[in-house]
């Protein structure tokens, strides 16, 4: 029995992603480096197979998963989980993921809206978790993301989150177009004429 086959078997039998640590723990008779090498060999050979599923690195471990482009076939008999995430869930998740650990007040400051309901539903979905309490007056709860978050979104680890875009990319309209119209000085004056009437 070859080491790659043993590892393949272990990962296949597991119900969640299997980390290198766990593999070495389960295979004390093998060298950790050998396990690591065998792993990347396995990933490569499954990729080369070009079959219906592949070995992917996710949530700090390895797992066999179907290839996304086969979705149309799988859904013919596997019930898919409900809908995609709402914009507010995704925004909140992103904030928690990039800024963790952080408090509800910090999330709300960034989003400008109450986030209690969203946080609670993310807690219930086990996508975020309570990490403890912050050492500031009032000792508010602090939140972070979970392993399930990485699993659901197919992320290797938190470092593989998409890099935050720089702001200049806000829109692709060439600079000159807006420049002429809206220098603040003049714009201000004109606008003044009709805006205040709204609040008198």
């Amino acid at each position, binding site marked *: 029995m070859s080491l790659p086959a043993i590892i393949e078997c272990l990962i*296949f039998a597991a119900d969640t992603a299997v980390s290198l640590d766990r593999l070495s723990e389960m295979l004390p008779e093998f060298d950790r480096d050998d396990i690591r090498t065998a792993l990347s060999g396995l990933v490569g050979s499954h990729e080369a197979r070009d079959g219906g599923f592949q070995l992917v690195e996710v949530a700090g471990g390895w797992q066999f998963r*179907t290839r996304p482009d086969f979705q149309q076939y799988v859904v013919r008999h596997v019930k898919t989980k409900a809908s995609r995430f709402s914009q507010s869930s995704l925004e909140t998740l992103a904030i928690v993921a990039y800024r963790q650990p952080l408090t509800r007040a910090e999330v709300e400051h960034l*989003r400008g*809206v109450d986030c209690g309901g969203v946080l609670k539903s993310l807690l219930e979905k086990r996508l975020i978790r309570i990490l403890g309490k912050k050492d500031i007056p009032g000792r508010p709860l602090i939140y972070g993301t979970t392993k399930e978050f990485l699993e659901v979104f197919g992320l290797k680890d938190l470092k593989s989150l998409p890099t935050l875009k720089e*702001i200049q990319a806000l829109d692709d309209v060439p600079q000159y177009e807006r420049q002429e119209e809206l220098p603040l000085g003049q714009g*201000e004056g004109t606008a003044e*004429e*009709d*805006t205040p009437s709204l609040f008198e």
Partner: protein
Amino acid sequence: MNSGVQASLRNGREETQTLLDGLHDGYSVHLDAFDGPMDLLLHLIRKNELDICNIPIAVITRQYLDYIKLMKNLNLEVAGDFLVMAATLLQIKSRMLLPLDEPEEGEEEEADPRAELIRRLMEYQQYKEAGLLIGARALLGREVFVRTCAEPFLTAARNEEGPLEVSLFELVDAFRVLLDRIPAEHFHDVAAAETFSIADCINEVLSLLQERDSVQFDDLVRDDFTRERVIVTFLALLELCRLKLIRIFQNSHEGSIWFVPAVIQDIEDPPLP
């Protein structure tokens, strides 16, 4: 065209147009789509193709307030968050109308009243886009699937030694569910509790077992039960057991407790009329 339209055209460009666009899309849907004041502001900045770093505050404020007004006119509930932002915008606007003071010591950087808002908007924009990117990934259980067929050998072996997997939230939530299930007042109004005899309860359990093959203990003890009723149910179950009318199962250590009718169990092959 009336004066209102002209006024706004004169001042800028097509804000009216952009507002109209929003309306023609079917406004209630469109308005609901704004995920808070920051989202609305970003939308306005994009629609007007403005430079986020140099927001013309008067234009944005007016359009923002128009939207809120529109929501009100459409009888949509305007969340407090939107109003807080309106106040912020108005405050910034009024501060920008004031002649620029000599830069005060210690806060030269903040001379622009818009600075804080712009910073928040820029940051929000980042997370919003990151959220969209994350949401566009192939999701487990939707686009990507794992092996669902459990390894038979592993499911059989339940392990007591291994690491524990449970979250704090689940712990608190378990406590909440428990307290919700038995409200405090029920401890005190035993006298007022309905008179529900063990016999009644036995009949109820038996009729339940006619409908289904098995009943879970938690199903029998409903949320609204008084403590007395819980005890009566329990005694009824003991009695049913003694009479060998039901059998009790627990699949795993600490698992749910199940009751099955003793008769069906004996016949082996369940399908009874």
